[in-house]
Structure formats: C-alpha cells, structure tokens
C-alpha cells in the first residue's frame, strides 16, 4: 500500500510534538501551564497559557479514561483508505480527569483493529472508554490514541 493510499498520519507541529512523543511511550499526557499559581490544562497545545500568559508548560499524565462526548459514522465519498473501512466511527472522548479536554479518535475492538471493528449500535454518548495506543505509519513512526469500550 502506498503512503497516499494509507490512513492519514498526524502532521505535527512544534506545539503538538510532545503529545506524540508521549503516546509513543504509551502515555496520554495533556499540556498544562507550569506556573505554580495557575496550572490550567489546555488543548490543543499552544505556546502560552490563555489564562495567565505564562510560557512555562508541562505535560500532565492522564488516566486514559473517558466518556464518549459525541460521534459520527462517516460514509463515502471518503479518501480511499477510509472508504475501504467505511462506515466506521469517529468519536470525541471527554477525559475523566479533565472533561473540558476532548480528544478525537476511533472506538476499536483492540488497539490495532480496523476503524470499523466495533458495531456502531454499541456506541452511546456517555459510554465509558479507555485509551489504547496504536503504532501507525511506516515502521510505527507515530502512535495514535484509540479507544476501547469499557465493559
């Protein structure tokens, strides 16, 4: 499969790069203000804190637990690699540790299962999920965060 036929990989930037470095280690971390007086989480990552203006930041470890905030089931026309797996689910997960932080992803049956590996009828807003880490791209160059339904 040529790269252009494959699923898209994150095109990272300077602000977002640490997120992907942590996922490669199997850690879900969210950027937070490192000013002791503030400490607010923020997502997507950015150079400075919108609450206090501090440029000091750290990456705070999350439990990886969350709930479905919403989801869609895309159908073609889609890019070829996605059309092959359609209809699949794309979800937004609100993190248990920080409900205002919502991560896009896919609910899958196992970390490396296809995007359509869970029956859409099993998806419900509010359903509990937990993060799974899925190496993707040539020689697993990026580790995507996917989601497993909690039993």
């Amino acid at each position, binding site marked *: 499969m040529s790269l252009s036929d494959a*699923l898209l990989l994150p095109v990272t930037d300077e602000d977002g790069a640490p997120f992907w470095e942590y996922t490669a280690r199997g850690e879900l971390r969210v950027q937070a203000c490192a000013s002791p007086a503030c400490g607010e989480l923020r997502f997507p990552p950015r150079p400075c804190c919108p609450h206090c203006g501090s440029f000091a930041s750290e990456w705070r470890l999350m439990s990886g637990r969350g709930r479905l905030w919403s*989801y*869609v089931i895309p159908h073609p*026309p889609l890019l070829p690699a996605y059309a092959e797996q359609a209809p699949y689910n794309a979800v937004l997960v609100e993190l248990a540790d920080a409900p*205002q932080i919502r991560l*896009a992803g*896919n609910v899958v049956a196992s970390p490396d299962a296809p995007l359509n590996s869970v029956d859409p009828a099993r998806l419900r807003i509010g359903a509990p999920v937990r993060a799974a880490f899925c190496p993707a791209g040539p020689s697993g160059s990026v580790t995507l965060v996917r989601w497993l339904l909690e039993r």
Partner: protein
Amino acid sequence: MATLKDATAIAGIGQTAFAKRLPESEKTLACRAILAALDDAGIAPSEVDGFASYTMEETDEVEVAKAIGAGDVTFFSKVGYGGGGSCATLGHLAAAIATGQASVGVAWRSRKRGSGPRPWKNTAVQLPTPAQWTRPYGLLRPADEIGMLARRYMHEYGATRDHLFNVALACRNRANQNPDAIMYDRPLTREMYMTSRWISEPLCLFDNCLETDGALACVIVAAERARDCRQKPVYLHSVAQGLPAQHHGMVNYWNDDPLTGPAWAAARQLWKQADFGPNDVHVAQIYDAFTPLVPLSLEGYGFCARGEGGAFTEGGALESGGRLPVNTGGGGLSEAYVHGFNLITEGVKQLRGTSTAQVPDAATCLVTAGEGVPTSAVLLRS
C-alpha cells in the same frame, strides 16, 4: 464614536448561472458577475476603487481589476475561514467607504466547487483546523466535523432528524419557486429525506449543501450615492464578525461549550449596533452548508433560546408565511452553494421586492455566514 449604521448601501448585485458544471473559468465567471452587478447599479467599472473577497477566492483583485477595467484601486481586503467570510466582505467595504478609503466597492465570490476538486481531498493542505488532532481518525470532511456537533446537539436538546428535514424542506420549497436554483424542478419529500444515503451519520445527503459552479458580486457605495443609483438602495444597517474566546474553527471541540459557536459572538456585536432586534427581522438568509447550522444560528442570533433551535423549525416556521421565512432563494442547500454569497444577493432581492419567494413588505433581513467557523453577519434594511 463613528458608526457604520446605514452609512453604506448595496447598489448592485450580479450573478452567473448556477450549475454542477459551467464551462467557463472562475476568472471569467467572476468578471461576468461583477460586470452584471455594476450594470445593475448603473456604475461604470472604471469607478471601482475597492475590492473585498474571501481568502479562499482564487481570482485575485489584480486579475479582476484589470479584466473589468477598474481605475486606481485604493482598498482591497480578503477575509478568511471559508464561508465564514461572506458577510465580512461587505463589512470591510462598508468600513472602507465610510472612512473615505474607497468610494465604489465590489465584493465577489467565484467558485467551481461543482466541477472542481473537493477541498478536503487535498491532504497536503492543512485547512484552517487543527488537523493533526482530527484527520488521522477519519474526521476528513466538513460534514464529519459538523456531524459531531450535530449529534451532541440532538442528544442534549432532543432535536430530531425531522427538525433537520424542516430546514432542508424550507430551502427546497423556496428553490422550487426560483428558476435560477439548481433544485428548481426537484421537490423534496420527507420519505426521500428519511431514506436517502448517509454522508456522516447523523447527517444524510439532504443535510448537505450542493456542489456548485457559479459566481456572484455586490456593489457597495455610500448611502447618499446609492440613492442616485438605478436600484432601490439596500442599506447595511449593521455588520459584525465573530471569533469567540477559545474558539477552534470548524472543529470547535475544545472549549467549555462547543454548541455556542461564532454566531453568538457575531450576534452580540450585530445587535449592539442595530436599531432593531431579532423580533423585527422580516426574513433571514441563514448560512446552510449543513442543516444543523440553521438551528444553531437561530439560537446564536437570538430568534429563540438555547436548545430551542430544533423546535423553532416546527409548524412551518421557516416557510413562506411562517414565523421567520429563511433562505428564500433556496440557500446553499437547494439554490447554489457559493460560500454563502447567494444568501447576500437574495437578501437584497427581498428588500427590493424582487425575490421569487417574496416576503410581503420585507424591510429588514438578516444574512449570516458560515457557523462553526469564525463568522460574520449583516443586517440589511430598505
């Protein structure tokens, strides 16, 4: 403080045919629409000294100005965020004309979205969304991105597919009265809607706008001058742009309240500058790239309370004779999708009294731009 209130007016409008495929180039279509709008106003192209369009517009002011025979151009501006920029093009020209930077302004949009490529297929271009956080997971198209908000909206407020159908039907019914509309001769039924194919559940085919080739333009001048032009002036009563705090673009998933989008911010500014309120709006042209944008916008612009946008559509409220007739030319869903510019020209037609679905004695019209993205809106009055 100086105000733009009624300081400028739309003196001319022009458009090409709308179709899935037009043979001419975007540049040619742009020139045709602009020259038609100038002719409508009775103003010579050599008098044009201001231009405004969208950053996504591919025909630039250099090409357009030399093709139509404009004079010295002293103001030009482009507004970002796709269809969110539509009404802002008028606002920028109004500000320029009211402050003496230009005297005859042209706003335009020319687009071959019908026969050209779908923007989301170009994966090398990062659209104005934080794509690294969404696209790998198959949130590829605007329909997927808005579908996510739509499902949450339906979940929180009990809005239904019937409410979305009400939006699609009102637009289609008006298109069936408008010979220029792509869907002029194609009625829509509830059964067609409910059995149509999915695009991104919960959105089906008829929740999505058309894919259209076409171009439109407006000519804006000072109010005083407009009164001497060929057509009845349509005044720019209030204009506003809106980029709310902590907004994230089409994927507005990361602020505290993703269901109060840019419409709310634009509305606050729009009404603050206006002499009248939502209850005084006779007809509205509401940006409808996707049906859920209409209930979201009805809430944002204050026609109903939060969460009531779905219910607002019941009982024919959006139809002719209803509480708030909308998208009376058929809108993006059923007339043409040209990034919302046809909503502006339809607003002008209503206030001139020349719409194909004329609201009797319409004297005020709200026109909105893309919701979800940083947006803009204008209040027109006759």
